[in-house]
């Protein structure tokens, strides 16, 4: 089954002058990590809201076109069911937690309580998630007194505990320092390994290159580019939509411009290391080729 299929979707927020989405047509497959990139106000958060059903049920406005989530039209979903089928973590660490629980353990349990899970099952599940994310040290802390990075981890733990197959994540690291960002990305990579479908909005393109299977570039409410991570990140038009390619891709472009292209354009670091290593062995072995 397809995770989401959008056909010519237009959406204008109530009281807004211009549409936030202007004819989005996009297919997202299940079991993959889909990266969404684009300039500010290009419609990324709106797209996430649509997949999660809060557009248009919570953020009202005018929605046209067809949106199908997991084979069912958006309008046919019961909002509560959609809320638990598609988990989401947004950017602001301070609003991702309930704010009414005394310990992280209880906070992670909150969603399960709301689903009516029995106490012993809640405890087992919460322990499992805490161990999975390695946040044992936070278990007894008050969630309202954590740092941004810690809160974001707890937000992930809380959503993971509910075990939805799809997780929509909007700029999870925009307010975190590099170390905390790295930790959050490890969590996301772990989710991908578990076979979850993930839609991830992220500005840090190097991280997207590293983790995403597909990338979609939004520009002024339209899909500017979409395809495999490699296709999109090596597309010459990428910059014209305000997206800078990964550092290693830029490096390869410069090498190509100086007439010494690598055998392939890398998008991840590992690839670059491999390609550059290959090149160095060639050059050491065969002497310097002239361009």
């Amino acid at each position, binding site marked *: 089954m397809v995770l989401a299929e959008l056909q010519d979707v237009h959406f204008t927020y109530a009281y807004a002058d211009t549409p936030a989405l202007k004819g989005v047509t996009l297919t997202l497959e299940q079991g993959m990590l889909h990266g969404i990139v684009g300039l500010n106000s290009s419609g990324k958060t709106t797209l996430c809201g649509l997949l*999660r059903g*809060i557009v248009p049920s*919570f953020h009202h406005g005018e929605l046209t076109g067809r949106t199908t989530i997991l084979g069912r039209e958006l309008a046919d979903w019961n*909002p*509560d069911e959609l*809320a*638990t089928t598609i*988990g*989401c973590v*947004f950017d*602001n660490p*301070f*609003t*991702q*937690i*309930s*704010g*009414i629980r*005394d*310990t992280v*353990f*209880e906070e992670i*349990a*909150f*969603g*399960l*309580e*709301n*689903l*009516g*899970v*029995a*106490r*012993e099952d*809640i*405890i087992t599940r*919460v*322990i499992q998630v*805490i*161990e999975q994310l390695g946040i*044992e*040290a936070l*278990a*007894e802390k008050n969630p*309202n007194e954590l740092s941004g990075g810690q809160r974001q981890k707890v*937000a992930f733990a*809380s*959503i993971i505990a*509910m075990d939805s197959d799809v997780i929509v994540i909007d700029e999870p690291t925009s307010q975190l320092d590099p170390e905390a960002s790295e930790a959050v990305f490890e969590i996301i990579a772990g989710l991908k390994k578990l076979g979850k479908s993930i839609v991830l909005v992220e500005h840090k393109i190097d991280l997207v290159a590293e983790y995403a299977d597909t990338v979609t570039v939004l520009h002024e409410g339209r899909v500017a580019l979409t395809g495999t991570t490699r296709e999109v990140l090596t597309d010459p038009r990428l910059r014209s939509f305000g997206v800078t390619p990964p550092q290693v891709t830029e490096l390869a472009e410069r090498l190509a411009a100086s007439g010494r292209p690598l055998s392939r354009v890398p998008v991840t670091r590992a690839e670059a290391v491999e390609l550059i290593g290959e090149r160095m062995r060639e050059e050491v072995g065969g002497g310097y080729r002239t361009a």
Partner: protein
Amino acid sequence: MTVTSLQEVADGYRQPRSLGNPILDLNPITTLCVIVALIVTGIALGGWVPSLAVCLLFMVAAVVAGRGRTYLPLILKLWLGVGLILFLLRALLTPGHVLIPLGRIAVTTEGIEQGLAFACVVMAICGGVTLFFEFVPMRHLTLALERLGVSPQASYVLLASFQAITDLGATAKVVLEAQTARGVETEGNVFMRVRAFFPVLAPVFLSAMAATEERAIALDARAFNSSTRHTSLVELRRTRRWEPVLAVALGVIAVGVIVGRALGWF
């Protein structure tokens, strides 16, 4: 933290919550009824002696329950800040038999009597409210209410309001510090402080409002609006059988005293 201690944390949830002694472990509703009944009885009996007795009873209860160290200093401050002022105002401004003339005003016998009674009544109420919050964690109160059929949404409002007070205080402090750092005068006399505080309110409330919408979405993602019956990780102790009896008995006494006074029995 080691794995065993995560297990310990988990084990804590496998048993009903205990705060460590029988008074604190009363059902929150029992505590509420007892405190209200005592306050009402004290006030209904009239004069300052019964109200003062209730105040003292609350203090004794706090000490017995092991909360004297936090409750007593707080109550002392309330007596000095509220009780004493109320007493002095009444004592000085009530006309009657002059005891000590002080220029245009005077301490009167009637003033002292009324002041004492008024201060003791107010302090019995303050003392009771403070004692309730000293004894009962908000979370326990909402759990008890939910057990009586109150909706989780209502509990949320109650818990979130209390959290908001804490948060607003914290944000206000941050903004005040920021303004002090920018050279805005925030210290000094009461007037200065109030004037410094008003510009603080706008950013504090705006940030709280903006957060509300995102919170609502986050709660929705946690199935808060699901129509299934919610369960609870934290379990309150079973209410002992005599607790409702105690609450009702004290309630009956309170009502009896009110009726008795109204009919002029004593």
